């Protein structure tokens, strides 16, 4: 079945639909990972977005449900150059198309994804719609233009857990994970060192401290960290937690931390989404290859330099990739030390955090 990808600038690209057959809206973003589509598709940080892979052959090794980073597919739609119809891998349980169908996500193949990537790179990310061929394209283009940007919604609320969940881990300590759209592997990594308690994004500092954590991880998640509802909940709680428990911020969690200490965040032109971003650890001089998925960044100049030092920089564009409180056991990284997808070079962040835990 034919379908189209319609961008807010009026561009319409035809392709073949697979997965679910329905119309969806979202912010079109690209990811340069050559593997890891299952992990990316289930990363809650993509909530509200249409995900496009720059690597042209997607679905080659099918889908292993073990690789899912959350319960469901998170982006509203998926765009690839070519979807593999007959996957080959001993762990493949179903094909990419069946996976998308099962989670009611529409997808399109046959797009010139490279041309689209270059467009986004030069013009910035755009609102877009994925529509079956039956739709009238000009009407859709108008709809896309007038639709509110997904970031105006509280996307975090849409992906966060509703109830507190417990994950038994190794050791006697407890780590609370504030779920702003957490990837499973953050929880898994934390379980290697402690029992993990996952709490909703709007848990108050009292809720959290009531769980007697040895440390708190602020998770990754979708959308604008400075959304009013986030400022009123997660950021407020973070502010109150500072000084009372060690904190590790990851991705959105890193941005929340900056906001909590009076810093500001800004939106990148097209974000960092991939597994090849070089990050320099300024304290050791070492360069690590990192997994990333974010559209916003922390403004280095806005950080209170008396309290925070920038510890990590992105070598491609010089943006802040990590920061640490000068006195308190509080630090954060913009990238994903839990990987999945992407390189496993940064597990050390968890080890460093564990070394800071109260019971340590």
């Amino acid at each position, binding site marked *: 079945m034919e379908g189209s990808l319609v961008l807010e600038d009026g561009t319409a690209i035809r392709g073949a639909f697979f997965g679910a057959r329905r119309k969806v809206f979202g912010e079109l973003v690209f990811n340069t990972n050559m593997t890891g589509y299952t992990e990316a598709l289930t990363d809650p940080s993509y909530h509200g977005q249409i995900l496009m892979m720059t690597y042209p052959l997607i679905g080659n090794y099918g889908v292993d449900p073990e690789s899912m980073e959350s319960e469901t597919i998170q982006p509203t739609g998926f765009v690839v150059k070519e979807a593999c119809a007959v996957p*080959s891998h001993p762990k493949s349980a179903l094909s990419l198309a069946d996976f998308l169908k099962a989670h009611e996500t529409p997808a399109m193949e046959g797009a010139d994804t490279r*041309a689209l990537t270059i467009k986004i790179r030069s013009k910035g990310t755009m609102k877009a719609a994925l529509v079956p061929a039956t739709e009238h394209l000009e009407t859709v283009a108008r709809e896309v233009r007038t639709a509110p940007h997904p970031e105006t919604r509280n996307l975090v609320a849409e992906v966060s857990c509703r109830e507190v969940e417990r994950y038994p881990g190794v050791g006697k300590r407890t780590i609370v994970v504030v779920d702003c759209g957490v990837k499973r592997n953050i929880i898994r990594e934390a379980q290697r060192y402690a029992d993990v308690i996952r709490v909703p994004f709007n848990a108050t500092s009292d809720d959290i401290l009531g769980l007697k954590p040895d440390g708190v991880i602020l998770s990754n998640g979708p959308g604008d960290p400075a959304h009013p509802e986030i400022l009123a909940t997660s950021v407020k709680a973070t502010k109150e937690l500072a000084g009372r428990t060690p904190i590790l911020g990851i991705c959105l969690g890193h941005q929340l931390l900056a906001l909590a200490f009076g810093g500001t965040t800004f939106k990148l032109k097209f974000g960092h989404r991939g597994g*090849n971003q070089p990050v320099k650890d300024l304290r050791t001089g070492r360069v690590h290859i990192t997994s990333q998925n974010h559209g916003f960044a922390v403004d280095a100049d806005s950080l209170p330099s008396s309290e925070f030092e920038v510890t990590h920089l992105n070598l491609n564009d010089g943006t802040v990739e990590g920061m640490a409180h000068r006195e308190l056991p509080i630090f954060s990284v913009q990238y994903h030390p839990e990987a999945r997808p992407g390189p496993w070079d940064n597990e050390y962040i968890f080890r460093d955090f564990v070394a800071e835990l109260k019971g340590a």
Partner: protein
Amino acid sequence: MPKRGDVRTAMVVGSGPIVIGQAAEFDYSGTQACRSLREEGVRVVLVNSNPATIQTDPETADAVYVEPLTIEFLEKVIAKERPQGILSGMGGQTALNLCSELADAGILQRHGVELLGTKLEAITAGENRERFASLMRSIGEPIPRSRAASDFESARGFVEEIGFPAIVRAAYTLGGAGSGVAHSPEDLERIVGFGLAYSRIKQVLVEESVLGWKEFEYEVMRDASDNCITICNMENLDPMGIHTGESIVVAPAQTLSDTDHQTLRSAALRIIRALGVEGGCNIQFAVHPRTGEYRVIEVNPRVSRSSALASKATGYPIARIAAKIAIGLRLDEIPNPVTGKTLASFEPALDYVVTKIPRWPFDKFPTVDRRIGTSMKSTGEVMAIGRTFEESFLKAVRSLEIDRLGLDSVPATDDEIVRELKEPTSERIFSIAEALRRGFAPEKIAALTDWDPFFIEKIRHLVRLESRLRGSRRTRALLAEAKRSGFADESLAALTRSSEEGIRRSRPRAAYKMVDTCGGEFEARTPYFYSTYEATGETPRLRGRKVLIVGSGPVRIGQGVEFDYCCVQGIFALREEGVAAIIANNNPETVSTDFDISTRLYFEPLLLEDVLNIIEEEKPDGVILQFGGQTSINLALPLAHALRRRRSRTRILGTPPASIDLAEDRRKFAALMRRLGIRQADAASGYSFDEVRGLAARIGYPVLVRPSYVLGGRGMEIVYTEEDLAGFMETAVRVSKDHPVLVDRYLAHATEIDVDVVADGRDIFIGGIQEHIEEAGIHSGDAACVLPAQTLSEAVLEDIRTVTRRLCKALHIAGLMNLQLAVQGDVVYVLEANPRASRTVPYVSKAIGISLAKVATKVMLGHSLRSLGLVGEAKIKHVAVKAPVFPFQRLPGVDTILGPEMKSTGEVMGIDRSLGRAYYKAMLAAGNPLPTQGAIYVTVRDEDKPTILPVVERLARIGLRIFATRGTAQFLRENGVDVTTVYRISENESPDALGLMRRGEIRLVINTPTNSTGARRDGYMMRRLAVDLNIPFIATVQAAGAAVQAIEESSAGDLAVVPLQEYRRTAPKKAAKL
């Protein structure tokens, strides 16, 4: 760590001649390294014996030594140049081994030279199996169970533990020589025997079989501050058990999940850290197709053919960065030259699929075992890029230039197909497609081939598309689909029964995408493009004059790196003239496909379709076809025709295509020679006895007959009567449609001459008149030759110049031409005129210090030779000898006799102030060191006995013992030479020559072939053994003469090393201009 200030001069060791397992990739890496180091202000000294390289250009390094690659000569260079450091990792296994030897011999320490980049311990850990195994155990990385064995006993014992099949590898060899898979005790004896013989340290490794597992490679880099990155991973379509150089390879890996990939990537980083490599490293993994468990198979702590492929596949210049790491730079201090903005410390993201397919020499060696396995037989490879696997795969197939446009049908029985799938040869991919056409189940094919079903499914897609194309009406949509899957226009024309031009008109236009290392994430400035069939292209308009050079494709026997050298020189000349240089080529090993050499690089197949597409895209002012060997010259006529039809303003530069046709068409050329009154040795070719008999009668006996393929140790023969001819045709020749018999008038005792000349329509400039040191009739690519000519009289030289001048005029040569001549007495005969660059152009250019291809390019742009100050002939005071290098050690059982079909893979040059010295260096560099002590073995035909006598006398005077067969011995003894008689092999008595050779007593064989049956068999066995034991084997009296002079001069005194720059300085003034 900041850049090391203590390294002011660095030495780079090259890889020597092109051989199987070591091709152009090390010219690419060495050249990159030299440029990279000089960028950092380091003075670079380069040593390489191979003149057909860009790295030996006087412009590439500060001091270029074309000298034999032995530790003795390297020490001389070290003593003279006093480098602080030496880079071992840029010249393949050859350089790595030499540098270990330099260290072991204490030479580095004696001269205070440090091994830069990867240290000796890492090299040893990568090469010594035991050390490697214990290192892997210490970091918990799984390797196949194995044991090193230095004798049969321990090999046998271990196989009893692990069972058959078992893998045997020889330690310290190139590209897997002397390795194999043992399925039985007999196999084991044989392979272990070979392995022990080939190994530099007389050691083999016997190993648990991971045959049939999937094979993956990771290219990893590390700097001295322990920053590590992976550049690329690659998946071998062929399973473990087939050398990666023999495998079809795709990049990136297609069938690894993210978890699989990160598992291997993390292992690769742990390994490079444990090895302590500073630079690039290649790591090979085997992955079980069902359980997913892996084993670390091999580590190459240096740049390699795989790293060249990875560089071209990703756009990340591994060698260039490795060189900077070697002098202490960190990855995050080195800018990424592709984007200009980002740094070298990142991992490339691809948004296309790359396929590499090896190019095998089996067309030249019809009798050789075509099965592929653990040792390398391929001479080169092609790479293609596409947005789908199918597109990249089919583009690669048609880049091979093996007369196949795609997955053509195979005329074989089902049983034969099954055997091919199980025991692969170079034909496997065609058999897979054929099996699918015949309805074999994909699962069955996957099981037989151990290919991942993913790839079988892709081939099935192509086969299905093929049948849809055959069956239905040709629609634009279907054509577009076929083009996206990589079908050639010509295939589509055949499938849909239409014309190629018709297909071209009804299909979409090619779009060109950029290779930018980052999946489009950053704006890049790489001028590196590939075609695909999508809507949007991204080639910015090039301003000003622009010229396209068509490259030479994969390295194969007969068309080697010499042509790439010429293409690169052409590029340099264009750029010097301010003309944008566009190159089209598909060989990932070469310098020409390094993206920062040309103004713009198109990585493409080189069929008419592909070249026309580029011309349509770029609309260049001109196209140069004379540098890319047969690949490009064959395009001349069809391209001229196509451009005329399109009323294109693009011109074919240089010699008009009609002249090319005139020179290549035997009949037209003969008529021209008659008209010009130039003597030509009559020649013709025929396919049947009757035809050949008629030709021989016309030419007149005696004739030289030669099959275009040599079988059973019998090559060319001089035939005096029709009766002899019948015998020859019956016994020795397989006449067929593909293999004609060539008949030439026999020019007895002729000397063969090669002339490389540049003409501009008015004047000519002769680069060199080269005299062969082999008998006439041997392919000029296989003949050793010397410059300047040594035995020709001034009158003959003048005749040669006249013939050259008249031919240039008659053929309207603009640019390069190569002439092959024979001189008999004082009469000059023309054998062939090739209106293009020849394989001797780099050698001549290096010898005279003038780049002939550059001169030719400038002429093609409209400069006159007069304005360039180059009219007449280059004069040199020194002597340069070119010696060929053959692949026989790699191809067991092949007869090593030389003939009209070229067999050599590469060449070396010896350069010095006299013939003897230059010849000695050339022989040494070619791996056939001439002895100054020990014994020689002489057996010559009767007519050569008087001429060989003074040669043998001189050898005896130097102190060499002389052995000879009865006839030769008797003659020598009668003439006062002290000689020991040995028996013919066929006489089956001791001492015989083979026994003496095996015992290491005989260090040189002089054998001019005779035609008696027994002598012929002896000759074959001796030649073969000489090859296997690296004993120089001389087959002509001329060569024997040069050899004795060489031995005399080398034993008389020390041979000096002199950089090419110095020869150039001392050359006559007019040569110094370019």
